[in-house]
């Protein structure tokens, strides 16, 4: 807590930070004695402080991905003591604050680990496979200018709310990093759940389900219903959407085949 007079409590931490010079380079842990870390700073600000000190010693700073630092862009994300985004529930790495740790704690910091998220450098990974999934069908085709008046497509409130719950996904990849199989079901299901329940999403529903799921499977492992993904998700995307994905994929296989046989 802040002391009230502008002076802040500080803490001392033993950090073990993963360092890796490039995708094909061997990596190892760097041990850092992180002293005088203000309790009120965020986890990434703690890394900023560590980096400034490393630079003072002519050591190249640790590379980590970050941008908005308000938990919405999905750029950041590291394993903190083995958990994606660390110990606080529903919190992205940038929103995690040091007051959640205790003075003297050891903190192990590693990149998200998944075969489809190759390490770029240190704590930064490449998550482009997510974009490939979206490009395969994670959209509603509505070329600019073609739309009818917005209120001509009523969407029941509970459907809109359900879609919004799914659409809140920030694409950070914590779900994949948490999964023992490195599956991307929760990420894919969040987009499918968002688009497939909306009236606007119906014309492409079955094509979308088949394309997105199969693109996902070409990059990622299989889902075995561990549920680790939703536990790690900073936006608490529900496992229910995976049920929607499974149902829609199954239906899509049947329907798409039937449609194909009609032509």
């Amino acid at each position, binding site marked *: 807590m802040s*002391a009230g007079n502008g002076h802040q409590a500080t803490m001392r931490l033993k950090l073990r930070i993963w360092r890796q010079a490039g995708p094909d380079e061997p990596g190892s842990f760097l041990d850092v004695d992180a002293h005088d870390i203000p309790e009120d700073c965020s986890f990434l600000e703690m890394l900023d402080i560590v980096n*400034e000190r490393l630079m003072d010693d002519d050591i190249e700073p640790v590379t980590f991905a970050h941008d*908005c*630092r308000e938990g919405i862009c999905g750029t950041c994300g590291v394993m903190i003591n083995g958990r994606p985004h660390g110990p606080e529930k529903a919190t992205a790495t940038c*929103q995690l*604050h040091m007051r959640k740790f205790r003075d003297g704690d050891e903190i192990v910091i590693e990149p998200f680990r998944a075969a489809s998220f190759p390490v770029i450098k240190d704590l930064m990974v490449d998550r482009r496979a997510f974009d490939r999934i979206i490009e395969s069908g994670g959209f509603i085709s509505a070329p600019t200018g073609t*739309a009818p008046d917005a209120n001509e497509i*009523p969407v029941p409130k509970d459907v809109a709310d359900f879609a919004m719950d799914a*659409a809140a996904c920030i*694409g950070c990849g914590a779900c994949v990093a948490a999964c023992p199989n490195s599956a991307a079901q929760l990420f894919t299901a969040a987009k499918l759940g968002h688009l497939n329940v909306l009236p606007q999403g119906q014309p492409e529903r079955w094509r979308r389900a088949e394309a997105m799921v199969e693109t996902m499977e070409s990059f990622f492992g299989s889902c075995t219903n561990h549920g680790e993904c939703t536990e790690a998700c900073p936006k608490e995307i529900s496992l229910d959407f995976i049920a929607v994905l499974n149902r829609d994929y199954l239906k899509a296989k049947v329907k798409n085949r039937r449609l194909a046989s009609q032509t």
Partner: protein
Amino acid sequence: MSVALDARIPDGPIAEKWDNHKFSVKLVNPANKRRFKILVVGTGLAGASAAASLAELGYKVEAFTFHDSPRRAHSIAAQGGINAAKNYRNDGDSVYRLFYDTVKGGDYRSREANVYRLSQVSLNIIDQCAAQGVPFAREYGGLLANRSFGGAQVSRTFYARGQTGQQLLLGAYQAMASQIAAGGVTLHNRTDVLDIVVKDGEAVGIVTRDLLTGEVRAHSGHAVVLATGGYGNVYYLSTNAMNCNVTAAWRAHRRGAAFANPCYTQIHPTCIPASDEFQSKLTLMSESLRNDGRIWVPRNSDDARAAADIGDADRYYFLEEKYPAFGNLVPRDVASRNAKTVVDQGLGVGPLRNGVYLDFADVIARDGESVVREKYGNLLDMYERITGEDPYRSPMRIYPATHYTMGGLWVDYNLMTNVPGLYALGECNFSDHGANRLGASALMQGLADGYFVLPYTIGDYLAPKLGAAPVPTDDPAFAAAVAEVDDRTRGWLAKRGTKSVDHYHRELGKIVWEYCGMARNRTGLEKALSEIPALREEFRANVKVLGSADTTNQSLEQVNRVDDFMEMAELKVRDALHREESCGGHFREEHQTPEGEALRDDENFSYVAAWDWQGPDQPQELVKEPLEFENVKLTQRSYK
């Protein structure tokens, strides 16, 4: 020699200008569009919507972002909503009223014709986004919900919980993704744009640096579109994302594009106050909170009681008292300045006495906690995570922070800069918000520019170029620009200085915030004008960048950006110094009414101040574009 600026505003009554203009611009026929290559820099709302829409029309689009994915662009962080003159609430809204409110809210420093067009296409934006599946808030009947938003007396704001920017950006990103899959858009991610290439006076391409390999290379196209956001990070601490920067726009400026109104910066009233020296950014709390939260400070500066124990008589609801008609919903600049005033008077709250209260106790008592949670839950949760305080139990603490920049590259009615073939969209241009932007209007402008303006206007430039190949990238103009970027980037590694890039960025931010922030005066601005060049000189001699230019190197990415901010800051201060009036976000202490409100000087300053680059050793030259108001009557803004 200075440039001549022709805004190319169409003739005719304001309501007909855009329609007439759309009819008079040259068209490129559908089969020929694929013969044109357009480079779009930035993939936020403006860039992604432009890339998608241009590709749908058939143009070959190459899109560039420094992010790993287009979905990371900072548009994603916009919380509150997007305006549109739909009048779905039956409360008297209209295209004309949105236009009028925006011109007035901008303190009469924007271009009428642009703002009217913005207001017109606002209708199409909502239709477009709803069709894409943006999960806007709905009423029980399934129709779209609205709310009123900072500074508006009608409910014209559409929203998706507190994540409107995220949902609109994902809509545009997904539209672009479908075009990537269809082959219309080629995406270059993790690619920094470090120069604009101009040949024979026209923009012909860009120079990029691959952020993974360090490779510097040229890209050539028939036109270049910059949608690279604003310059708020010149303050170091702002609500912008860490990597937001002015570099592409600034490099365009150095290649001849005029930079307009750089002193206009919006300070957002509701942000979480800074807590320590290592603070890396400030977090905005949507001003929709002002709809229900009440802003106050203790009347007595040595009142040490907890907020809840302070009775109504000892609370100073300064906005409600001063502005009975608008109360807590006064425009952003007015709300911000008043917060600064009470904090400067020693009435600030919190450990550093650097905030004011935003209190939900009354609305929780009236509507219940669950209603408040439904409306603002994610914002209040974010507040609790950052501060460790529960806003349902004790009032939030807020303070203004830099949020949006109204100035930017000068553009004409077609959104083209004064460099032919170079366009600027969204926050990157200066055009629609005058000296102050109304809430929920940034998303509107970004999407208007990308979905509904540029796709119409770009043909006017391209049509006569039919059959002309883009300038080849082995042209000397490209080779010279590539060499320059490469030398500049590698040069930083050779400095072997003693202080980090962040150190200099923080120091720059302190100067700009102190002397060119919420309130400015001649003495302070002149001080900034002597301190900034000195800091820049020290930075250029003594900055320390480790590592290599041929791999991922975040310090090296940042050093080019801070270098450009160092130049940009000086122009910003000079613009603020020259504008001897107060208007919107530009408050000069010498120019205020007896009640402390901004005092404009319409006779002498009713113009756009566009600055023309004269070379690295010469100050920019001021070029004025006079503003003519044929429809809106200029008045002293009053929200009492």
